[in-house]
């Protein structure tokens, strides 16, 4: 019995939790307790798997005892274990934040009761996608997480969310169809959907057919990962969802797409056939995304554009496809999941405190709530890649890889990466200057709560101080805590995790480097699934 054999639990536990929370749909306290404890146990199991991963190497679990390539296998290697741990950690933090928001608003039931089961199903789908060693099972994992995400995206069914939901659902379904079509064609060409088996058999397929299959898969995953020019849907749909939902979507869903792209590039179709194409795509994603962010005044939309832009860095590392480039990309994925999620959570807090996420209508937040200032400033600088934060280390690794490759296109990518980093800093500085540093008097049409607390002259934590006026956003008569500990706590935790990635950069970079080497070798993966001597 080794830790990696626990892999199915990472999928089964959240599913069980979802079933139980469904039964408890009228008892929101019990729901909260069940979903938080489920994710905590899942996280502990995944941490055990990650700690054991370097010593056991790649390990395959055969579901139902069926021999590969006929049965479905779950494969645990260092990359998938790392992704599992990071994704579960941020899912847990966002869950506590969402539960805290529900408690602070005092709505014991309502549309939120469906939140917990759906959220756990989303986590199960993400874990399934990270673990599976079977292409069709990967499709099923994607569908599980997407269907859960459709529900979360349209939670409450308000007009803006329905509008955004339609775009999101249609685009996701089309990308899933492309994936399904690619699976059908791959099965037609090779007669298998097991990824290790495919890695061996695809090499014998005619190169032109290979190229078609390769590009089909990349387009399908490119839509999910929001790579330019397939990224148009993301800033349209993410910002309207509730803050915790946007946070977990931004952190996880696009990264599952990136993860699938990495597996396709390293395991199924190795070689540098389309690396130049990927490099151009990476460059355009970075630059176009960040230029879009410059034009926005709504923080959630602005962050959605930076999200698209920074996906470009991961594709950058993947396109270089050297050990150091791939390792830096793995590290960057872990860093970006954490940082992007914490920024969206902080934006939720800003919205609560200031009444809006529009920077034109905000002001003086640094004075009103220094904690909020710190919580925004650290991940913002981290995202921009200011030394010594983890964002800087990841970008440094990518730039090293680009310079090492030394082709003109690689140098263009390096220049594009540095430019994007500077523009991210500019975007973040604009938000900082407006929402945090200027006086609330300069804000256009600020929210009554923002102004009232300023007139009071004291830093007030609840909406009680604005009684007598129309506080609008809070329906009930009772005072509402604006920044409850249950919401700031998880945010602080995530910001700390982001800083932890910087402190632990040494071991983590070594791990990413090992994971990259494992993926480039391919043999460990193939032999773990099909048995020794299968490669070749």
């Amino acid at each position, binding site marked *: 019995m080794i830790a990696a054999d626990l892999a199915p639990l990472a999928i089964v536990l959240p599913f069980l939790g979802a079933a139980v929370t469904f039964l408890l749909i009228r008892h929101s306290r019990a729901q909260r307790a069940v979903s938080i404890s489920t994710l905590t146990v899942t996280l502990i199991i995944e941490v055990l798997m990650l700690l054991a991963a370097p010593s056991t190497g790649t390990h395959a679990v055969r579901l139902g005892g069926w021999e590969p390539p006929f049965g479905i296998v779950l494969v645990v290697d260092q990359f998938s274990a790392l992704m599992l741990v990071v994704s579960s950690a941020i899912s847990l933090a966002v869950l506590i934040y969402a539960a805290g928001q529900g408690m602070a608003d005092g709505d014991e039931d309502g549309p939120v009761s469906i939140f917990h089961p759906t959220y756990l199903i989303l986590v199960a789908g993400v874990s399934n996608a990270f673990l599976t060693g079977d292409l*069709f099972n990967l499709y*099923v994992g994607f*569908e599980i997480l997407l*269907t859960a995400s*459709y*529900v979360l995206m*349209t939670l409450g*069914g*308000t*007009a*803006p969310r*329905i*509008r*955004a*939901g*339609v*775009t999101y*659902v*249609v685009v996701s*379904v*089309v990308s*899933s*169809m492309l994936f*399904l*079509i690619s*699976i*059908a*064609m791959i*099965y*037609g060409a090779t007669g298998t*959907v097991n990824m290790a088996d495919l890695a061996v058999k695809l090499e014998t397929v005619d190169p032109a057919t290979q190229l078609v299959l390769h590009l089909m898969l990349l387009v399908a995953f490119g839509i999910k990962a929001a790579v330019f020019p397939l990224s148009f849907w993301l800033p*349209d749909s993410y*910002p309207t969802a509730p803050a915790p939902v946007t946070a977990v979507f931004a952190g996880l869903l696009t990264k599952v797409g990136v993860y699938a792209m990495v597996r396709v590039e390293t395991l199924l179709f190795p070689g540098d056939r389309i690396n130049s194409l990927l490099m151009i795509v990476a460059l355009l994603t970075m630059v176009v995304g960040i230029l879009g962010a410059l*034009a*926005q*005044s*709504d923080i959630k*939309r602005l962050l959605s554009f930076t999200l698209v832009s920074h996906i470009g860095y991961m594709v950058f590392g993947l396109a270089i496809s050297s050990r150091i480039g791939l390792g830096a990309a793995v590290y960057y994925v872990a860093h970006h999941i954490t940082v992007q999620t914490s920024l969206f959570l902080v934006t939720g807090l800003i919205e609560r405190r200031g009444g*809006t996420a*529009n920077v*034109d*209508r905000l002001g003086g937040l640094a004075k009103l709530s220094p904690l909020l200032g710190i919580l925004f400033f650290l991940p913002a600088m981290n995202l921009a890649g200011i030394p010594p934060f983890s964002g800087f280390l990841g970008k440094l690794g990518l730039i090293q890889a680009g310079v090492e490759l030394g082709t003109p296109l690689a140098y263009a990518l390096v220049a594009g990466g540095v430019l994007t980093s500077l523009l991210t800093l500019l975007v973040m500085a*604009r938000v900082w*200057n*407006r929402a945090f540093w*200027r006086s609330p008097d*300069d804000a*256009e*049409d600020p929210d009554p709560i923002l102004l009232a607390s300023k007139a009071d002259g004291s830093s007030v934590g609840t909406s009680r101080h604005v009684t007598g006026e129309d506080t609008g956003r809070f329906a009930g008569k009772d005072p509402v805590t604006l920044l409850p500990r249950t919401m700031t706590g998880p945010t602080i935790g995530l910001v700390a995790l982001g800083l932890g990635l910087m402190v632990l950069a040494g071991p983590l970079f070594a791990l990413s480097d090992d994971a990259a080497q494992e993926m480039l070798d391919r043999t460990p993966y193939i032999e773990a699934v099909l048995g020794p001597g299968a490669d070749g």
Partner: protein
Amino acid sequence: MTVNLTLIVLMAAFFAAGIYLLLERSLTRVLLGLILLGNGANILMLAMSGGGGTSPLYVAGTPTEDYTDSLPQALILTAIVITFAVTAFMLGIIYRSWVLGREDDVQDDPEDRRVADQSSYDWEDDADVVAETSEFFDDDDADPTVRRGSTARDGAATLDVGAARGEHDPAPRTRRPGDPR
């Protein structure tokens, strides 16, 4: 591998009609397009399973080539269930959209429109830097009456900024920036 031509032609027709419907603005048509695309993909998978054969139940003495390939059928079944769930959800969304706004069309993002409409000039980022930002005055080259007047208030700097603002943005804003049109 032999491929059934009827299936391929049928699949092509499904895909063509599906993509055509998907490009419509009416949500019901988009949904029909998605259903056609899903079924087209299922037919493709069926075509990829090779020719027919006897049912895949083990009978002693039957050569393995005679059995039909059962895996694609299992995959198709899974895909059908998934498409069914998504179709049901889409119908729910379309109905909700109809209840909310009597709309069956794909709507534009209001925030997108707002960002596209806004002026490239931003008084906070782009205003001319005020020449005199010091709050201290040199006695020699300033008129004492003006100086007294300005120090009595907030200081010259704020006054100047106010003037610059008034110059570029004369009309008071009536519309909230976050409001949809």
